[in-house]
């Protein structure tokens, strides 16, 4: 346990010192986008990784968070500055409230149907963002920019996003350790069986869905404020969920470290490719390749595969049994699960 805590402390220290080392705003911008995706991937995984449901509509929470900040700043005539960050909890609240009806509808279905329903709801929200008066349609909303010195302009964004990330990781970790998390994992393995053991599956799933929406809404607001303007096609970009899901699958679905690793690897890569070649969509090709590679080589993701490999080396036993059970046991195990009579 101690080395893990020490590792975590070091990581936090490193992340805290990063803007001091990377003074170039280009790099700190990339770091901020990476933190945003680390948070989104972690929160997405808090629902998807533990419950086994794969939602592809979390951009709804991202976009709603973004618009909450933009609209509030506009309507309340706020000026750029630290005060604007106070809107971030509000954005999280709005995302959480939207997740209730969203989840109530979508969670009536399972597996593929669930995925399709979340995509459909996402498009409904995108359509609304284009057409509702409050969002100012496709002309978007300008957000007041803070008058901070250029050299350290990015730092407040960086540190507050880091704070949201810590919140999301802590939530994910607590959920994993709680009775509630155990119930989610039981739902992942056999939902009907869990129900028959007294687990109130509907509530458990919905709660996890809402919990996973809140930090996504918060980083959505952060994204909007940092960019300084917001348009429907970026706030409700269908590729957001594809990226986030890929990051989680890359690192390891259902683990705490996996989504972090996935975002740390893939988001800077995307930013680099976009900056280097000025082709905004080049990353999609790379993502496609990465996705195929992960599915073929490490279907459970980097973190679980590496952990098992290390454990096997240490004990000298191939495929030592999983003790903590937080990694996805391979399909070979799942294949033995009984099906309902």
């Amino acid at each position: 346990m101690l080395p893990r805590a020490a590792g975590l402390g070091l990581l936090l220290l490193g992340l805290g010192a990063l803007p001091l080392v990377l003074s170039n705003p280009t790099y700190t911008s990339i770091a901020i986008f990476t933190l945003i995706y680390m948070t989104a991937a972690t929160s997405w995984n808090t629902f998807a990784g533990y419950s086994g449901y794969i939602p592809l509509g979390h951009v709804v929470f991202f976009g709603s968070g973004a618009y909450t900040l933009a609209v509030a700043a506009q309507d309340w005539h706020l000026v750029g500055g630290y005060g604007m960050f106070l809107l971030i909890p509000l954005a999280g609240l709005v995302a959480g409230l939207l997740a209730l009806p969203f989840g109530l509808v979508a969670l009536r279905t399972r597996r593929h149907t669930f995925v399709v329903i979340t995509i459909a709801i996402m498009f409904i929200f995108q359509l609304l963002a284009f057409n509702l008066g409050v969002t100012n349609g496709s002309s978007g909303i300008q957000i007041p920019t803070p008058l901070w010195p250029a050299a350290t302009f990015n730092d407040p964004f960086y540190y507050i996003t880091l704070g949201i990330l810590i919140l999301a990781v802590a939530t994910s970790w607590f959920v994993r350790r709680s009775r509630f998390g155990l119930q989610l994992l039981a739902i992942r393995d056999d939902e009907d069986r869990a129900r028959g053991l007294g687990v109130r599956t509907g509530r458990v799933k919905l709660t996890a869905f809402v919990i996973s929406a809140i930090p996504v809404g918060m980083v959505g607001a952060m994204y909007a404020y940092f960019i300084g303007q917001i348009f429907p096609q970026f706030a409700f970009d269908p590729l957001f969920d594809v990226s986030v899901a890929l990051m989680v699958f890359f690192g390891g679905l259902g683990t705490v470290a996996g989504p972090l690793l996935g975002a740390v690897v893939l988001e800077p890569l995307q930013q680099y490719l976009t900056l280097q070649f000025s082709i905004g969509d080049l990353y999609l090709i790379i993502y496609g390749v990465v996705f195929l590679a992960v599915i073929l080589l490490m279907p459970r993701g980097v973190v679980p595969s590496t952990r098992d490999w290390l454990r096997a080396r240490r004990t000298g036993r191939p495929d030592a049994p999983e003790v903590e059970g937080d990694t996805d046991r391979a399909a070979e195990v799942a294949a033995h699960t009984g099906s309902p009579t």
Partner: protein
Amino acid sequence: MSALLEIDGVSKAYGGVQALSACSLDVAEGTITGLIGPNGSGKTTLFNVVTGYEHVNVGAVRYRGRAITNHAPDQVFKLGIGRTFQLTRIFARLTLMENMLVATQHHEGWARSMVRRGSSAGERRRALELLEFVGLAGHAGEAAGTLSYGQRKLLELAYVLIADPEVLLLDEPAGGINPSLIHYITERIRELNRQGRTFLVVEHNMEFVMGLCERVTVMHQGCVIVSGTPHEVRADPRVLDAYLGGADDEEEGAGAA
């Protein structure tokens, strides 16, 4: 006098197949009741109806005199009716210990489960005791998916027991299990029965049923045709008829006589 569990005129059809037709059955408190019948006679369907996995429009299920017809599975379980499945259902990617803990939440509210740890020391101790009871304590930290078929049956029994159900519905606890393990399971059920638990056991293995149960009920084409002591049931010509004539897909367990 009323039975602990009463099934009263329950009917259930799947399309054209009448899985249950006006099926009635009483289970007295403290007994081990056997439920036998040819394949497709509706035994599993009856379990599904009692435990809330299937809904019915006709008939009633009562537990301690209280109607529980069409209650949801979690509600039925909380009232004290636990079950196992014919095709065993365990949480394959969770460890045995985690499997054991799934059913422990039934004492607490939903908000509480959010903030508490996965388990208390007392719950883990109890879980280990029960794993010990079914002989799986040595595997507590392993993923349940690594267990053999028979061990899965034992784990499923153990994780239901942790919630302290008063009635246990076991669907073929001895099916596909080697003989020494069958003996072991028989002993476990007897011991639990001595502690006051009531059992309704579906099983094709006649030796197992006749040796374990005080009363045996025979189903055929969705109806109960005979109910009595093992001796009476064995001697009843209708039972032989049901097994030899009724079912399309006969199997070895039919050696009732």
